[in-house]
């Protein structure tokens, strides 16, 4: 007699497979469609907590402080990530402006702060009804927040600008690089299955009453 806990369905092709224990750091693939089934990571919750805190620390300087200062023909000009959104807004390209705001300013913040609050709650073993929703949203933010794409765009712009002006690199630039590194690090240390199992565990505990815990 097998229960649902011994089985696993491939997210890519729905093939029903028997769950097998895997070594952390090693990926298991679906035999039929080659989708990654299991990719365990060590101490995922603690690492994500630490990384999201350090990401949040540099968030404000990374987005609002000037990235670069240009000098050309006696004039200077500088701008931040937020200014880039404002320039589309002032040019009346509202759709593009909103998209840039969401993908480069809003979602990276939401991603880090949701991961911070979820991993903190899991560490403190306190279940709240919104916890599953918060984590689900955090997983989606990973796709729609694009600071890494933005960083490549920044490097492309630097190459473009280099021929017309001299460039000074400001604090915002280095903070932004750090923010991108932290966002990428949070993605690569995140083990959704570990998070979900922990959420399920403390959810059951909270429904049976907190007196039985510990």
């Amino acid at each position, binding site marked *: 007699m097998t229960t*649902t806990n011994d089985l*696993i*369905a491939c*997210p*890519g*092709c*729905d*093939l*029903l497979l028997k769950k097998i224990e895997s070594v952390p750091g090693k990926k298991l693939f679906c035999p039929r*469609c*080659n*989708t990654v089934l299991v990719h365990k990571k060590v101490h995922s919750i603690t690492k994500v907590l630490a990384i999201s805190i350090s990401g949040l620390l540099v968030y404000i300087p990374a987005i609002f402080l000037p990235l*670069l200062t*240009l000098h*050309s*023909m006696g*004039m200077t*000009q*500088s*701008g931040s990530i937020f*200014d*880039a*959104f*404002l*320039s*589309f807004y002032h*040019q009346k*390209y509202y*759709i*593009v402006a909103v*998209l*840039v705001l969401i*993908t*480069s300013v809003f979602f990276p913040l939401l991603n880090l702060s949701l991961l911070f609050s979820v991993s903190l709650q899991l560490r403190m073993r306190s279940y709240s009804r919104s916890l*599953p*929703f918060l*984590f*689900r949203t955090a*997983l989606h933010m990973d*796709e*729609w927040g*694009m600071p890494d*794409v*933005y960083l*490549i*765009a*920044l490097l*492309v*712009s630097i*190459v*473009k*600008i280099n021929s*017309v*002006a001299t460039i000074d690199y400001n604090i915002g630039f280095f903070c932004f690089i750090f923010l991108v590194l932290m966002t990428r690090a949070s993605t690569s240390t995140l083990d*959704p*299955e570990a998070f*979900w199992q922990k*959420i*399920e565990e403390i*959810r059951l505990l909270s429904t049976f009453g907190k007196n039985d815990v510990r």
Partner: protein
Amino acid sequence: MSDKTAKQLTAMDAGFLSCHDCGKLLEAGQMIQDRAVLTCTRCNSELHFRKPHSIARVWALIITAMVLFIPANLLPIMRVDFLGTKSYSTIMDGIIYFFHEGEYGIGLIIFIASVLVPLFKMIGMVIILLSIQFKWRKGLRHKSSMFRFIEFIGRWSMLDIFVIALMSTLVSFGGFTATVAAPAATYFSTVVVCTMVAALTFDSRLLWDA
């Protein structure tokens, strides 16, 4: 490995629902059937055997993206004002500029991100949709890895939009030189959003059901 396409047991065949969001496997029979919406006991998201109306929605989004891709490439995406003269450039003009300047690496990155990637996404999704509808069961493994690739590269098409955002902020020296966005920016970013939503709406398990 060859295509062993003899019918293998899926979770749906066995009467199991697997959650789209957290991957938990639930027995469909156990769930209370009189409720209109089944929700996952772990993450509270709605449960379906397959994502609802996936194929119709993906067709709609891909066709929208294909239509908008035409103005996105034909209309100018950027305007550079230099000492009062305005010059418009399309996506291709920008790429050709980099190749003329000798910046082959950068030119190639932009070409891949803003021309090849959207094209690949749209053509790839059409191939996948057609193969579901006409039950072409060849190379399913390749098709599903192609889909995973489409999912992965989707966001990188925003590169050009971000470059324009940065250029228009940084390169604006009063009346001397200024860089401004042009109409194709809106079309292009809509193409990116449509293709990304299409990849999210598509249920890759349908490939194997066909």
